[in-house]
């Protein structure tokens, strides 16, 4: 095991997987010569050549659209969207084709493609560099979504995504790219899709999150007098309901945290699953802590928007005091 940053863990996964399977190709804007604007793809072009680590034209719909065709031709494309907010042109291809093509062939063809992108705020960047658009992706039938919160999971979930026969979107919290570091297993390392992680054990309340908000929840847990359990969802689809509901059954209380705007966010899905399947386990209402129904603010105000450990702790107290 080596200590690595999250972005280095992503880079490691790409190296290991491309070594393992010669049909894997990485494609995207500035992924080759520059090694990616976050350096997630550094070294790949030198190691695997310009045909397997491709600097594409500046066109996200083109990247994902050609990835569909590349998959049909027998490749496993790993597409990088340079920023989550610049992925939006690719949603056309994602919704109209990526998520439907297998279905359209009656299951005759597979589309084992991966889309990876940075996500989220907290990095004090100009407009449209700090969105959290996971709901658009996870809402698309036929598409799976994973969001790691640790370097080891970033490596393992990306490897699982690349190996998965279905299209998988991996969103990497960019605020975590360079810190904290974490132990990352060497060589092949796969974290299966669909398995949540108990990031902290507790007895009185369950804090549910994914990505950067897992760390916010861990901090919030420290602020509470009660004992908080933190569930790191890891894979939004397929969702590990067993771990989620198991934790809620144990604590009887749940706070769901997402950085994305509140309305119709993935947190609403988590709340619905808990309400439908575990309502009798609950001793109080399920409370959400989220971004607001406004565009992500100018960065001098981002702390007013991104959920903080104080906001999460306050929500937890509300549920605990119910």
């Amino acid at each position, binding site marked *: 095991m080596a200590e690595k940053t999250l972005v280095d863990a992503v880079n490691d996964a790409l190296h290991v997987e491309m070594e393992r399977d010669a049909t894997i190709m990485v494609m995207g*804007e*500035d992924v*080759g*010569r*520059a*090694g990616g*604007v976050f350096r997630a793809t550094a070294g790949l072009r030198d190691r695997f050549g310009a045909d397997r680590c491709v*600097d594409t*034209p*500046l*066109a996200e*719909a*083109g990247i994902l659209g050609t990835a569909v065709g590349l998959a049909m031709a027998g490749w496993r494309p790993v597409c990088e969207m340079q920023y989550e*907010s*610049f992925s*939006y*042109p690719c949603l056309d291809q994602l919704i109209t084709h990526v998520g439907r093509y297998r279905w359209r062939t009656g299951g005759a063809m597979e589309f084992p493609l991966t889309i990876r992108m940075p996500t989220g705020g907290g990095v*004090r*960047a*100009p*407009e*449209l*560099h700090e969105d959290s658009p996971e709901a658009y992706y996870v809402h698309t039938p036929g598409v799976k979504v994973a969001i790691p919160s640790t370097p080891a999971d970033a490596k393992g979930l990306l490897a699982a995504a690349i190996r998965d026969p279905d299209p998988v979107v991996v969103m990497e919290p960019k605020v975590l790219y360079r810190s904290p570091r974490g132990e990352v297993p060497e060589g092949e390392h796969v974290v299966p899709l669909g398995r949540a992680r108990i990031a902290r054990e507790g007895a009185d309340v369950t804090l549910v999150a994914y990505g950067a908000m897992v760390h916010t929840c861990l901090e919030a847990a420290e602020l509470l007098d009660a004992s908080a359990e933190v569930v790191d969802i890891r894979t939004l689809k397929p969702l590990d309901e067993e771990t989620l509901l198991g934790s809620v059954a144990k604590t009887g209380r749940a706070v769901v945290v997402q950085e994305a705007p*509140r*309305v119709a966010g993935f947190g609403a899905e988590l709340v619905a699953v808990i309400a439908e399947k575990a309502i009798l386990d609950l001793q109080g209402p399920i409370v959400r*802590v*989220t*971004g*607001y*129904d*406004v*565009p992500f*603010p*100018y*960065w*001098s*105000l*981002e702390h*007013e*928007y991104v*959920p903080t450990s104080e*906001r999460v702790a306050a929500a937890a107290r509300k549920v605990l005091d119910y």
Partner: protein
Amino acid sequence: MAQVLPAEHDVRRIIGDGDGVADGEVEGLDDAALLDLYRAMVLLRTYDERSVVYHSQGRVGTYAIFWGHEAIQAGSALALADEDWIFPSYRESAIGLLRGMTPETVLSWWRGHPAGWWNPREFRIASITVPIATHVPHAVGYAWGARLKGESACALVYFGDGATSEGAFHEGANFAAVMRAPVVLLCNNNQWAISTPLSAQTRAEFLADKAAGYGMPGVRVDGGDVLAVYQATSEALARARAGHGPTFVEALTYRCAPHVTADDPTAYWDAQRVERERENECLGRYDRYLRRLGVLSDELAEDARDDALERMKSGIAAAEALPPPDPEVVFASAYVDPPPTLREG
């Protein structure tokens, strides 16, 4: 039916090299106008150079450097009528300075402070667009709308060479031609999209050739020659105002600075080429031209620089003196009529 000739391939130039290539002249610009243009370029250059310093001092955030692009921006902006609208990308963030916006406003934008927002109607300048090419259709729609209302206003939209790969560029350009929108599509071809060279962006030798596919004229101009840019934009605007629709102008330059302050270009660029291009940068070329004409003196040049520096000094001071933004701004303006749950989070 409209008839569109193949795009020009020769790069238009006015400014000579003080040696074998003779200086030309542009109609309609007297000495005072030539000097105003000089001052505009100096202001932009000073804004840019100071911003890089401010960034290194932690006084502005990540900043998109436009060093060497001043001729494209100042030359084209000068060609506009007051009523014409500008649709900038991040690369033209300071274009408002040429229409009376203060450095404080633009600096605030890069400081992530809402004082960096402006009312587009006040300056006839749309908001800075961060996503590539998505504003091209906006400019086209504005111009089309103005034409439908019988107004004479045109639109000018700036975008890069990389932007020509995006669907939004293509769709906007096609709409512009179909709707005969009075718009100038001004492509800043600095031959790089971050680390991606033009040769990896397109197999077209000339971006101006794309114009023929839309049924509009395509013009190539030396983007380091402020007068050539002015003239090409003026012609395009005259065509637009006469009801003949859009023009694609490819302004050729070379990016001699990092893409943004956060970028490290040493990994991908050719340092020798950059050195050569830097020596031929647009402000120096125009400076020497004006001196050959006998229009510019050391004194006037110094005055332009001092004035620009002074404006930057008071601009950054004013931006830094602003109180932290009111958190209410987070909720203030997304909706005219906000849903009652807006503040729930």
